[in-house]
């Protein structure tokens, strides 16, 4: 990034090549729309380009970039939700999406998958998490960032982040129980909900 700051266009291209896919991926998982995800990713790179002269290496470049991406994605999700609320002002009150139908524990997974795509089921479980938990899971699981970096992006302590991650994975474990493993059914009696 310091080379980009010095006006090296080739370095900006390297940044683009390195972070384009993870960034679009992250944004797609946040907003769940490929067009919007790409638009937001372009906006992130554009902001990085505009701010290159003011960049100071006080924080890691990825922390800075993903913080921009997180803020843009959350604003987009909120705006979209608000827009849909305005459109359906006269319509009966409904949730943004129908709730995830968690299959019964004794139901065979393949029966459930007839109705719903497996990946979509997982996507929706992640999307149903509260904002902070969702960002934490995406950065931890898919971007494999360390705790310090994720904590700086979410502006919380590492200790708080660990609690957020635990709650998020615990929710996903329950929501996706039929997919996690058949063994969960056998251990239902052993399990203890925190």
């Amino acid at each position, binding site marked *: 990034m310091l080379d980009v700051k010095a006006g090296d266009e080739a370095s900006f291209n390297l940044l683009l090549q390195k972070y384009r896919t993870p960034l679009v991926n992250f944004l797609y998982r946040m907003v769940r729309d490929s067009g919007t995800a790409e638009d937001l990713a372009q906006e992130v790179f554009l902001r990085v380009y505009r701010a290159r002269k003011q960049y100071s290496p006080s924080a890691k470049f990825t922390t800075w970039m993903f913080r921009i991406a997180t803020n843009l994605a959350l604003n987009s999700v909120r705006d979209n939700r608000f827009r849909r609320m305005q459109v359906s002002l006269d319509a009966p009150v409904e949730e943004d999406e129908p709730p995830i139908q968690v299959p019964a524990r004794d139901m065979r997974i393949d029966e459930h998958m007839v109705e719903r795509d497996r990946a979509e089921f997982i996507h929706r479980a992640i999307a149903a998490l509260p904002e902070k938990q969702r960002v934490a899971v995406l950065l931890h699981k898919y971007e494999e960032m360390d705790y310090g970096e994720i904590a700086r992006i979410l502006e919380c302590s590492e200790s708080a982040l660990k609690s957020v*991650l635990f709650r998020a994975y615990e929710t996903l474990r329950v929501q996706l129980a039929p997919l996690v*493993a058949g063994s969960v059914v056998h251990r239902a009696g052993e399990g*203890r909900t925190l």
Partner: protein
Amino acid sequence: MKCDDVSRELIAYLDRRANSADRAVVEEHLKDCAACRSRAEDFRKLWSLLDEVPAHEPSFGFDARLRQRIASEPRPRWFAWLVPRPRLAFTMALLVALSVWMSRSPQNRPTNFANAPSEEEQFQMIDHLGVLENFDLLSKSDVLSELPARTPQEKAPPDDEAQPKGDGG
């Protein structure tokens, strides 16, 4: 240690980022707690499940569109350094406004000679200067402050004293 206390370190233990001390604590707990052992195993399976979600690749024209947007960005001009920064310009404007206001405030205005006492009035003041100086001296004298305070009866003279005693006085 209780399950709730271990839960915070459980994720870091499973992704192998916990330090050795925390790792030992969690391992010790997992030996004795079947519920947490089961949860830990489920988390591992959950992570494998999350890996099944396919990555979303950017579209073919992503780079081209971005370069187009960058190219359409306004270029910095050669005289850009002459243009003051917004904060600096605001501060300068504020300072100018403050100095104008200060120069127009009443205490800084020149004396209004139209209201100055006339020469005759000045002579009268000089005539009464002795009286004025004595009054000033007496009013600031400590001796007066040491005098006993007068009661309200003393302060208000009786009616007959207040009346003028005829023309003879």
